[in-house]
C-alpha cells in the first residue's frame, strides 16, 4: 500500500543525539516507526532513547540491518553525512537538513550516480506512509490512510494538502516531501514514476513551486507514459516576483519557463488537472475520483 517506506522499514537516525535528531526520533518512535538506532561520531557504544548509538553508518548498518537513514545534521556537515550513508549502500537516505551549500550538493549528486542509494531531499519534511511508518518531521495525525500519492517540494503545504484530502474523505498511500533546494536527490518525475508503479496508489497529487524545470519534466513524462493515473497539480508562487528567492533556496524565477504560469500551462497540456487555488486541492481530488 505504499512506496519507499512501510512497516518493514528499519530506520537509522544520523545526528541522533542532537536536539533535532532526538526530538524527531522520539516522535517517529511514538508514531510506530521502527527506529533501530542512531549515529553520532564519538558517541558510539552509548545508548540514546533506549537505542544503540554508533560512530559510523557502516557499523550501525551491520549491527542493526537498517535499510533507511534519516539525516538531522547541521548544513555544513550534512553533505558528508549523505556521502557516508551512500558509501554504506544505504538503500534509502532522507535528508531533512535545510541550508546545504550548492557546491556540496553538486558533489553528492555525482556520488549518487554511481551508487544504488536513493536520496530524498535535502530541505524536505521526509516521507510518511500512514499507519505504517513516518520517516520525517511531519505531524502524523494529519495523514489518513488511503490511495492518493502525494508529492511536494514544501513542508506545511504538504500538510495543507493532506488535510484537505482527509476532509474530502480520502487518504494518502504515501506522502513524499522531495525538498525545496535547487539540487535534490529525487526529482518530481522519479517520485511520480514510483507512484505510477504502485498498485495501491490510484491518483497522484503533485505540488510544485516556481524555479527549475522538474514539474515540466514530470508532466511530459506523465503524458508520454499514457496518463495511466489521474494527476492533480498545484504550483505555488503565481505572485512571486522574478529574481527573488522565496524562502526555499530553489524557489526563484530565473526565466520565462520556470514561472508558476508556464509550469501550469505545460501541466495542463500534459493532461494534469491543474488547481489554481491552493484552497481547492482536496475538492478537486474528490471531484476527479468521482
Amino acid at each position, binding site marked *: 500500500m505504499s512506496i519507499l517506506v512501510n512497516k518493514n522499514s528499519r530506520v537509522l537516525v544520523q545526528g541522533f543525539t542532537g536536539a533535532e535528531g532526538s526530538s524527531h526520533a522520539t*516522535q517517529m518512535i511514538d508514531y510506530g516507526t521502527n527506529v533501530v538506532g542512531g549515529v553520532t561520531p564519538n558517541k558510539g557504544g552509548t545508548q540514546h532513547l533506549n537505542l544503540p548509538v554508533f560512530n559510523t553508518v557502516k557499523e550501525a548498518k551491520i549491527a542493526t540491518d537498517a535499510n533507511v537513514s534519516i539525516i538531522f545534521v547541521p*548544513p*555544513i556537515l550534512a553533505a558528508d553525512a549523505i556521502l557516508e550513508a551512500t558509501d554504506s549502500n544505504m538503500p534509502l537516505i532522507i535528508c531533512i537538513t535545510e*541550508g*546545504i*551549500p*550548492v*557546491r556540496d*550538493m*553538486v*558533489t553528492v*549528486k*555525482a556520488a549518487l550516480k554511481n551508487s544504488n542509494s536513493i536520496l530524498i531531499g535535502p530541505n524536505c519534511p521526509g516521507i510518511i506512509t500512514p499507519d505504517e511508518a513516518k520517516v520525517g*518531521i*511531519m*505531524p502524523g*495525525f*494529519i495523514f489518513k490512510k488511503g490511495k492518493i500519492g502525494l508529492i*511536494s*517540494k*514544501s*513542508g*506545511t*503545504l*504538504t*500538510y*495543507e494538502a493532506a*488535510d*484537505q484530502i482527509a476532509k474530502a474523505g480520502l487518504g494518502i498511500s504515501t506522502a513524499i516531501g522531495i525538498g*525545496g533546494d*535547487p*539540487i535534490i536527490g529525487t526529482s518530481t518525475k522519479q517520485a511520480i514514476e514510483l507512484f505510477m508503479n504502485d498498485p495501491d496508489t490510484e491518483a497522484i497529487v503533485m*505540488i510544485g*513551486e*516556481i*524555479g*527549475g*524545470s522538474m514539474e515540466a*519534466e514530470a508532466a511530459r513524462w506523465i503524458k508520454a507514459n499514457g496518463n495511466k493515473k489521474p494527476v492533480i497539480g*498545484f504550483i*505555488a*508562487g*503565481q*505572485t*512571486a*516576483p522574478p529574481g*527573488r*528567492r*522565496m*524562502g*526555499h*533556496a*530553489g*524557489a526563484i524565477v530565473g526565466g520565462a519557463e520556470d514561472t*508558476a504560469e508556464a509550469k501550469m500551462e505545460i501541466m495542463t497540456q500534459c493532461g494534469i488537472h491543474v488547481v*489554481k*487555488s*491552493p*484552497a*481547492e486541492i482536496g475538492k478537486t481530488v474528490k471531484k476527479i475520483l468521482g
Partner: protein
Amino acid sequence: MNLHEYQAKEILKAFQVPVQDGIVAETINQATEAYKKITEETGSKFAVIKAQIHAGGRGKGKIENTEQRGVCVVKSLEEATQAATNLLSNKLITIQTGPKGKIVNKIFVAKDAYTTGPAATQEFYLSMLLDRAKGEFVIIYSTEGGVDIEKVAHETPDKIFKEWINPTVGLANFQLRDIAFNLGLKGEAAKSCQKFVANLYKAFINTDCSLLEINPLFKNSQDQILAVDCKMSIEDNALIRHPELEAIRDLSEEDPIEIEAGKYNLNFIKLDGNVGCMVNGAGLAMATMDIIKLSGGDPANFLDVGGGANAQTVEAGFRIILKEPNVKAILINIFGGIVRCDKVANGVIEAYKKIGNINIPIIARLQGNSAELAKELLDKSGLKVVSAIELEDAAKLVTQALL
C-alpha cells in the same frame, strides 16, 4: 549575497585573475586623487568612472533627470571631477533598477583597458553558474561580449557555447582549450585565456559563487585576457564558511525592512500589494500570496515565520508589515503541525494587545493541531481579528476585508 564590481575584482586578483584594475572612491576628493594616481601609473589621460551599485545596465543607465551615464570614459582631471560630482549621492536608473533607481554611494575609477597596440581588441562573454537540471556547474561563453547575453541567446543561439564541469574531475584542460578555440583565439591570446578561465574557476569554487559573470571578457591590444566588468554573487547558504565575505556585505544595497526582519529570523520579502501576510513555511507562504491574489487583493509581502510562530515573532511580523501604509489587511496563515494553534492564537492576541492600535482587519487562519480551540480564543478576544480554519474561508474573509 551580491558583491560590488570593485569587491569582486579584489577577490579575482587574489586568485591571479587579471582584471581592469582601479581604485574605489566614496567622495569627489577621493575620486580625483584616484584619477591622478591611475593616470600616473598608465601614462595615459584616459580613465573609466563606474558607479558601484548592485544592478546591471550601468553603462546605458543614467542619473535621474540628467545625461550622466553610470559608466563613462574621462580624459582629464576636470572631466573626472565632473563625473564623480554627477554620480556620487545621486540616483542611477538602469534597466535593472527600475524607475526607483539606486543611490550611488561609491564609484570605481578604473584604468582604460582599451588602449591601442599591436593586436586588435575584442570583447567576449563568460559566466559560471549552476545548471539545476544537470546538477552540475556550467561555463557559458560567447564571442558576443559587452551586450545583453539573453538577447544573443535568443537571436543567435549558435554563438553561445557551454562547458559542463564534471564534479569529480573538475574543469579539464581540453575544456580550457575548447573555450579558447571557440572564442577564435590563437597563440598568446589562447594561452592567456586558458590561464584566465582556470583561475576564474578556482575563484568560483573557492568562494562558493552562485554566479560569476565576466561581461565583457576582454582581449587587449597585447593579446592578454582580462575581466573588464564582473558580477559576483556568493551563495547565501555557504556564507557561514566565508566570514571574510560576509564582512564586506554592503547592507546599504539591501532593503532596510528585510534587514530588520532578518534580525528576528523572519524570512521577509517586500512586495507592492495591499494585503500583508504571515505564514509558517515557504511553500505555504507562496500559496498564501496566491490566495490573496485570487481573492482580489495583491500580496504586500512574503513572510515565512518558520517553526517558531510565537508572540515575539508575530509581534515583529505585525510591526514590519504595518510599516507599509498601503496595507489594508493582514492574513495570518499558520498550519499547526507540531506547533499548537491555541499557542499561536495566544501569541497573536498578546502581540496585538502589545501593539495596541491596529487599524486594519487581521484575518487569522489557524489550522491543524488544536485549531478549534484557537478559533474560540480568537473569537472571544474582543479584538479586530476574524478567524478561520479552512483556507477557503480565509480567502473569502480577505475579499470581504477589501470591500
